[in-house]
């Protein structure tokens, strides 16, 4: 038995065709959620089944894959997905942002600016930005169709009324290309401005909810806000204790039970690169 038990990159070719059609439609209508026939993957829902299917469908033998989980290359989710594609597709993998052609991410957008030759694939748990205010799918679809988005500001209003400022820090709603309101998956809102006019293609896959959506390269992405409460990027006002960066998104690491805290770059590759450059000096 030498024949492999599965196709290149796990999914069969017909499934990939179906997903590619959904991706093409998503690119044609920026921010619109395209339904697709999501498959069972050999991992539980919530672990990135949507992102994995998108990656599997666009992956070629020459691609170089990078997978990050909250910015980091070495956490469980990132390691297992990277190994999954190394095994099922035999593609080259990397942790370096600049070397990758496809980057699958659970939420963060790398600090290193992306290029035209790269594709960013997001894993999305809940693709519908209106969901928590309007539970009916029929109604939210109609609201998207009619661009009836007053409700989205109700959520932001509630934030300000309760907390004095817009307290939504992740999954912060954006308007794509002046038309569709989109949930940028649970990325910290710090990364929202990177989506605007991004050179790379951004694809979003939600496996359990069976939706794919996209932001084509160089598309206008605007974070929703109020005139008197404008969008703020939101960042812990600290510097990374490993590389000293003061403009990156930081993770707070609890180091002991005495209140010890360590702030480090969430993007582990970017942090290592900076430290490497420091040593080389």
């Amino acid at each position, binding site marked *: 038995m030498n024949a492999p038990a599965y196709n290149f990159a796990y999914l069969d070719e017909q499934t990939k065709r179906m997903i590619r059609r959904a991706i093409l439609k998503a690119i044609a209508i920026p921010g619109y959620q395209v339904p697709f026939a999501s498959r069972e993957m050999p991992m539980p829902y919530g672990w990135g089944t949507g992102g994995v299917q998108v990656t599997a469908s666009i992956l070629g033998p020459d691609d170089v894959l990078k997978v990050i989980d909250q910015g980091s290359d070495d956490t469980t989710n990132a390691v297992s997905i990277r190994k999954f594609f190394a095994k099922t597709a035999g593609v080259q993998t990397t942790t370096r942002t600049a070397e990758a052609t496809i980057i699958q991410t659970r939420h963060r957008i790398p600090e290193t600016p992306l290029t035209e030759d790269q594709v960013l694939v997001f894993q999305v748990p809940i693709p519908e930005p209106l969901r928590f*205010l309007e539970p009916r799918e029929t109604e939210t679809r109609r609201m998207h169709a*009619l661009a009836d988005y*007053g409700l989205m500001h*109700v959520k932001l209003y509630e934030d300000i*009324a309760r907390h004095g400022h817009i307290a939504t820090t992740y999954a912060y709603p954006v308007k794509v290309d002046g038309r569709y309101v989109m949930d940028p998956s649970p990325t910290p809102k710090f990364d929202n401005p990177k989506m605007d006019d991004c050179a790379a293609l951004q694809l979003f896959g939600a496996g359990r909810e069976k939706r794919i959506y996209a932001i084509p390269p160089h598309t206008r992405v605007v974070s929703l*806000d109020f005139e*008197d409460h404008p969008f703020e990027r939101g960042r812990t006002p600290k510097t990374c204790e490993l590389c000293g960066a003061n403009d990156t998104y930081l993770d707070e690491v609890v180091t002991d039970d005495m209140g010890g805290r360590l702030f480090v770059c969430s993007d582990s590759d970017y942090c290592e690169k900076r430290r490497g450059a420091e040593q080389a000096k």
Partner: protein
Amino acid sequence: MTESDAPLLLAEGLTKYYGRQLGCRDVSFALYEGEVLAVVGESGSGKTTLLQLLSTQLTPSAGHVRYRLRDGVTRDLAELSEAERRFLFRTDWGYVHQDAALGLRMNVSAGANVGERLMAVGWRHYGRIRGAAATWLDRVEIEADRIDDPPLTYSGGMRQRLQIARNLVTQPRLVFMDEPTGGLDVSVQARLLDLLRGLVTELGLAAVIVTHDLAVARLLSHRIMVMKGGEVIEEGLTDQVLDDPREPYTQLLVSSILPA
């Protein structure tokens, strides 16, 4: 005839069948600006069906509803696109449900409930939205410090008043009310009616009020339509119909009010 002399809402031969079941048959009337019309009748007489037909929530089996839009053009509501109808619904119209839970977002603060329509029509200034919400809460006699509480924490009467504020914030010209005082106790009803009467007069609202309570009709409406078995059996000026009912059914209805 000048523009504002034309009727605001015009129903022509409205008929609705639910399969073989009759909802209402051949209802025609004209409603003018600032006029309040009460539709009375017992349960199952087709009142609510009529209200839903008028507000385009149901499609009639036959007949038309025409409405004079803010630009002065009278149009058949069935011909409007859904986007136009929605816009109409959240700007020029109000709809007060009997059950406030249907007309409010129960988990969202009162301020946001009132502000939602403003945000839907493009208001993007938090301070101004909140200011408008506070003004309207004051007008419907809800204390200013309850602005951030969700209606879940409100009493029945307060919910109903909040629903009214939410509907009136965009200064609509026409409000539909489905049993606005249903399920409230008598003293709360009286206060709500008093408030409604004040607002209707002050704002010059046109309204269609569906009720089984003749006292509500007498207090609020200029004209009255009596429905029975899906058809209008009598209509006229409110005091005329209530004081001098012509049809036996209306006489029965009027005489069945308990003396105060």
